[in-house]
């Protein structure tokens, strides 16, 4: 008679290894458990990273996902973050290199999922900042909202993601016309559901500097040299209005935050 521990070890091995069929385990029953485990993980990956399947099709995605789940067993029954390693997997998965933006689109999906499940917190009210004199404003450093995620890509990944993220409609006969250039994206969830905001190079650099804790004065000049669409008051106002920042600490109303 097998004790519980050795039985578990054997069944776990048989689920992982389709060529391992221990005596006493019926093949048909074993395949039910193997299929359920695999389907469970592939379904979670499909739900958490939905745009990849849209680009490559169901068969390719399923085959690729089967390879991913084999080497990425979850350690815990909470699967909200499962698939966070999928973008890096795609970067090294040779067949995926034929679609050079695929891993980056997967990364935006992963950031969307992170934003979707991030802690709830009220967004910053931009009104006090708009009324603030410029010197004081430039001395501020504000944390990003808990749900804010930002990324920069050398290709129009934000656009490709937006066009392929379900339930976006499928392209018509003419397909999509895409201006092939670098793009950035911010995802945040100030109220309700996640919203996506396209970012210019200077906007991304500004938010990236804010994320690192630098003050606005430094952050506005963090953009690439020769950048023509730098961070002016109007652009700053747009970013504030998009609720990308967390509520500032109470000291803001009394004195500049160092």
């Amino acid at each position, binding site marked *: 008679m097998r*004790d519980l521990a050795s039985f*578990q070890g054997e069944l*776990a091995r048989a689920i992982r290894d389709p060529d391992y069929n221990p005596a006493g385990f019926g093949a048909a029953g074993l395949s*039910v458990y193997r299929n359920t485990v695999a389907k469970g993980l592939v379904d979670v990956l499909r739900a958490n990273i939905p745009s990849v399947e849209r680009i490559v099709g169901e068969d390719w995605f399923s085959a690729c996902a089967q390879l991913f789940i084999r080497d990425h067993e979850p*350690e815990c*029954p*909470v699967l909200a973050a499962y698939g966070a390693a999928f973008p890096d997997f795609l970067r090294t998965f040779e067949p995926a290199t034929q679609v050079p933006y695929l891993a980056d689109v997967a990364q935006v999906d992963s950031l969307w999922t992170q934003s979707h499940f*991030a802690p*709830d917190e009220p967004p910053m009210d931009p009104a006090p900042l708009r009324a603030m004199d410029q010197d004081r404003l430039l001395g501020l450093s504000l944390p990003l909202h808990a749900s804010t995620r930002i990324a920069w890509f050398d290709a129009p990944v934000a656009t490709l993601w937006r066009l392929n993220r379900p339930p976006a409609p499928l392209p018509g006969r003419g397909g999509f016309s895409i201006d092939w250039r670098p793009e950035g994206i911010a995802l945040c969830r100030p109220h309700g559901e996640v919203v996506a905001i396209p970012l210019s190079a200077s906007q991304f650099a500004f938010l990236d500097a804010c994320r690192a804790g630098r003050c606005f004065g430094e952050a506005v000049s963090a953009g690439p040299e020769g950048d023509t669409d730098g961070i002016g008051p109007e652009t700053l106002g747009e970013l504030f209005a998009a609720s990308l920042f967390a509520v500032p600490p109470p000291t803001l109303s009394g004195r500049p935050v160092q």
Partner: protein
Amino acid sequence: MPPTVGLGFKPQHFEDAANCPAVGHWYEVHPENYMVPGGPRLAMLTTLRDRYPLSLHGVGLSLAGDAPPSVDHLGRLKALVDRFDPFVVSEHLAWSVSDEAYFPDLLPFPRTRQALTRIADNIDRTQNALGRTILIENPSLYLRLDGHELSETAFLTELTRSTGCGLLVDVNNVYVSARNMGFDAETWLDAIPGDAVGEIHLAGHVADARMGERLLIDTHGAEIAEPVWRLYERLVSRIGPRPTLIERDENIPSFKALMQERTRAAHVLACVTSNQRKAVVDA
């Protein structure tokens, strides 16, 4: 009105679900899907809980594993129990964690005395951590294993005696397991101590694509089958009405279609209640 028939909550049905006027209505969710820091999923559950009783039906404690349930996972479950105050908390007589790997399934084990002691201890630890008793559900079975020392009903009954836990009888799982393992479903249901049953599950199954009717799969992806309805009527006729869940996780139909199955189950419960009252009056 105590909870009568409930539905497994599906986020795509949120608007209908949050405004369902059925008497005694309630919802059940897998707590693992709500163990997240924030976001719309928790917000929806908060709204539902403001309006309906809620059941938390876990899939991750791995109570039939040869290790105590994860302290971290118990902590996450306790936080949800404290926040949402469910009227029932349940888990499965199955395992899903081995050597820190999680398998998203409800896996079987040989029902030995050694396993009984281990699993009773795991249930004790869970109930102590949560500060309340839980219900244990019979899973659907697909492997004919050697080495069972107790029948499934004897094993479940022993667990209720030694831990004080209750039972969640999944009638579809009884039917599927009976067909796959070769036992009699009616005998199984008749052997369960009625007083211990705190909840009943109803769901659909399909025949395996290759094996056909010789191997039934508990997919939660089809309507509840007629033989399962008959077993349900038999069970509640014997033990009386119990909160009953319509489970659907695949091929999810409209909310209206799920409500039709709910109405049928509610009718069964109402008939049982009516017969019980009549029996009391006649006596």
